[in-house]
Structure formats: C-alpha cells, structure tokens
C-alpha cells in the first residue's frame, strides 16, 4: 500500500496525513508498517505514531510542539483538543 502519512523527522511521534483517513481506516507508514486510525484524521492533520502518556511531549520536526493533555493512543488524532501548548492559538 502507498503511504498515506508523512513522518517529517525520525524522532517524531506524530505523522501528517496525506489524505482524509476515516475512523477505522489504515494508516500506512512510509517505511512500511501500518496500524488502524482510531478516529478520523483529516487531510494535513496529525496522527499519533505511538501511545503518548499524559504530559509527555509531542514531537514534530524533531521538536516539541506541545504536551499530551490526556492519554493519546497510537492511531489517535492529535490536535488542540488533546495538546497543551505554550503560546496558545486562537
């Protein structure tokens, strides 16, 4: 299967969806490997690549973009609803 997400940095624990992935859809990784999307991952949004415990850093670009608010399961959508952020957006 053609990858439907992109991992920007090898240290990242989230990937970016290259298409709308429906709930229960398959997330196919660029280097091989796949898992199930636990909820809908909209085009250009982030999906968790591993389980992320509350308070743990979410990495994209190899850098911290925020901290998990609650348990983020592998395959979950990662966005403002489950991230705490320095410099809150609107």
């Amino acid at each position: 299967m053609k990858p439907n997400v992109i991992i920007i940095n090898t240290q990242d624990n989230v990937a970016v969806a290259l298409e709308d992935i429906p709930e229960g859809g398959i997330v196919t990784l660029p280097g091989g490997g796949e898992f199930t999307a636990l909820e809908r991952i909209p085009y250009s949004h982030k999906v968790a690549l591993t389980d992320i415990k509350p308070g743990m850093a979410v990495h994209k670009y190899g850098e911290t973009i925020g901290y998990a608010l609650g348990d983020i399961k592998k395959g979950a959508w990662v966005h403002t609803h489950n991230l705490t952020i320095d410099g809150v957006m609107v």
Partner: protein
Amino acid sequence: MKRDTVQGYVRPDGSIGIRNYVAVIPTVACANGVADMIGREVKGTVPLLHGHGCGRALEIGMQTNTLAGLGKNPNVSGAIVIGLGCETISAEAVASEIAKTLKPVEFFLIQNEGGSRKTAVKGIRSAKKMVDDASGMKRVECPLESITMGLECGGSDAFSGVTANPAVGLVSDWLVDAGGTVILTENTEMIGTSHILSKRAKTPEVGQRIVQIIETAEKRTKDILGPLASYVIAPGNMDGGMSSIQEKSLGCICKAGSRPINGVVEYGRNPNDKGLVILDGPGYDMESMAGLGAAGCQLIIFTTGRGTPAGFPIIPVIKVSSTTRLFLAMEDDIDVNAGAVLEGVTLERIAEEIIDLSIDVINGRKSKAELNRQGGILCLYAATPAF
C-alpha cells in the same frame, strides 16, 4: 553535474555576481521618474523604484544602508544613484558607501542638474558606459562558497512545512556545508521558536539576540493588532492541522536546515559571518527580500503553498511549491514542485532537484520569476509611519 564551483562575475572586492546588472537607485520617490527614464533608455540597467527616502527619521539610517546594500550586492556591476537634493536619504552617502566595493558608482541630484531631463541625460550617458563595461565581463569559475542564498516563504499552506520547507532545509545544509552562506529571515514567522533557534546559536550572545528579535516581533504584533494578533501569528492554520504557534513556526524555520546559527544581522546590513545567519527583518515578503538583497544574497529560494509569483529586481528567485496541485495550477511561476513528496518522492530527491536548478540559475539560466519579469518595485522596511 559539477557542484563545488559555479560560473560568476568577479567584482573588485572579490565578491561573485551571478547577474550583471547596472542598478539605477533613486534615493527618494521624487527621483523615480528619472531613474525610470534611465532604465527604459539603457538595456542592462535595473531601476530600483521605491516609495521612500524622505518624511521619516527613525528608519533613515536603515533605509540608507538598504539602498547602499543593494548597490553593493554582487549581482550589481555598477550603480547610478539619483537624488532629488533636499531628501533625507543622502545620495552622496549611498553612493560613497557603494564605492567602498570599488565598483563604478556615480550620483546625480535633480535639483543640481537643472531638472529631470537634464539629470536623465547625464544618467543615461553614465549608464551606457557602465553597461558597456559590464557587457565585456566574462563569467569565470568560482567556488560555491562565494554564494549567499536567501530564504523566503510566502502564501504558506498546511504542506509548506511538510514538503517545500524541509526540502529547502536540506539545500540550506548543503550550502552551509560547502562553505557558503544561508540567510533566514521573517521574524514574525519565528514566533514561538526562540528556545529552539537560540539552542542552535554559535555563541550565547547570538542566542540572546535571537530571543530578543523574536520577542520584539511578538510584542510589536500584539501592540499593533491587540486581540487580532493571534490571527497574524496563526492565520487560519488550525483548520490545516496546525495545533500550536511552535508547530506553525517550526514549519517555517525548517527551511533553514539544521546547522548552527552563526550570527544575527540587522536589516540593511551585510552579515560578516558565513554559514547560517538570521536577518532581523519583517515577514512581509517584498520587504523581506529587499533585506536579503541588501545583505548580499545573490539568489533567493522562495517556498509557497498558495502560489506567489513575486520575484526581486536584481536577484533570481526560485519558487518551490508545497503541493502538486499548486504546481499544476501555476506552472508559469513555480520552478520546483516539492509537492511530489506527498506522492512518495523523498525530500532528499526534491532537495537534489532544487540544488541542480540553483546551480543552473546561478550559472545564468533564468528562474520563472525572471522570465515573467516579476521583479516588481522595491519595498523598503519601515517600522514607524511617515510624518
């Protein structure tokens, strides 16, 4: 392809031009007509028309430096400075600063020469001589390290930070490793990344400067816009999947690759440092590119998601699109499609493509913005209103 050398014009100060223009620089908007007359009459000249030069106090030093810096840019073989005579920016000061490069430079004041036409006649005579001399210059083999590449992004979308900017980041690392210079700018697009960028600073002083310029950018945005500031900091990006300011800014700054940051240079100045440098400048593309030009960039790499056709008068600008959709929609304006990453092409492969094209463009091939004559007019940065 041979990549450690390029073909350029050697200037008297040892800098390397990749274009060979005679710049006609009005020091004030009142001199634009004369500069334009010279530009239309003499092929090979580039009039740098702009709307500034008077009615200000705080920015006069910076704008003088910027105009002089553009005249000193290695892509310029010689310069003619046209002043009115009573403006705040001194034509003589701009000309004498350019003269430090030992390139030919002359200045004329409209009020001294007896009006527009008489000034234009003199300017045209000088311009013809400069273009004639420049046309005899030959490109010679020069080390790649003589190249300074400016980075720009405009009209970003959700994939700018996923495809185009990371690919350009690899190009930045390549040029820095080759001994060249890469300049990152657009302070407003660094907001939220102080701690990341300052960690990469070569010295603690450089780190403090980085923190300071980003703080200033954030404060200024909030002072001017109040509650609307967050819209500027994050213009509708949440729908595109951006969850924090850091995330958005990281997508912007990743075009500067991963190498240490050797210095911070003020707008209008040329950095003394090689390697990766930050230019303290605004996020507005056109003013940002003027700063990059004054800092000595011979080439600008410009990533875009929404699609901007903008170029710069004396500098080839290479456009990199973030998606194939944009590339196909605006093929006339986009040089490289980094959107291919979304179809499975590696970032490394796109970076190779940008490097190959950059070498070609350095050696004389025209970028799309050059072909479209999208140089536009010069936009100079000013932080305060005119009076």
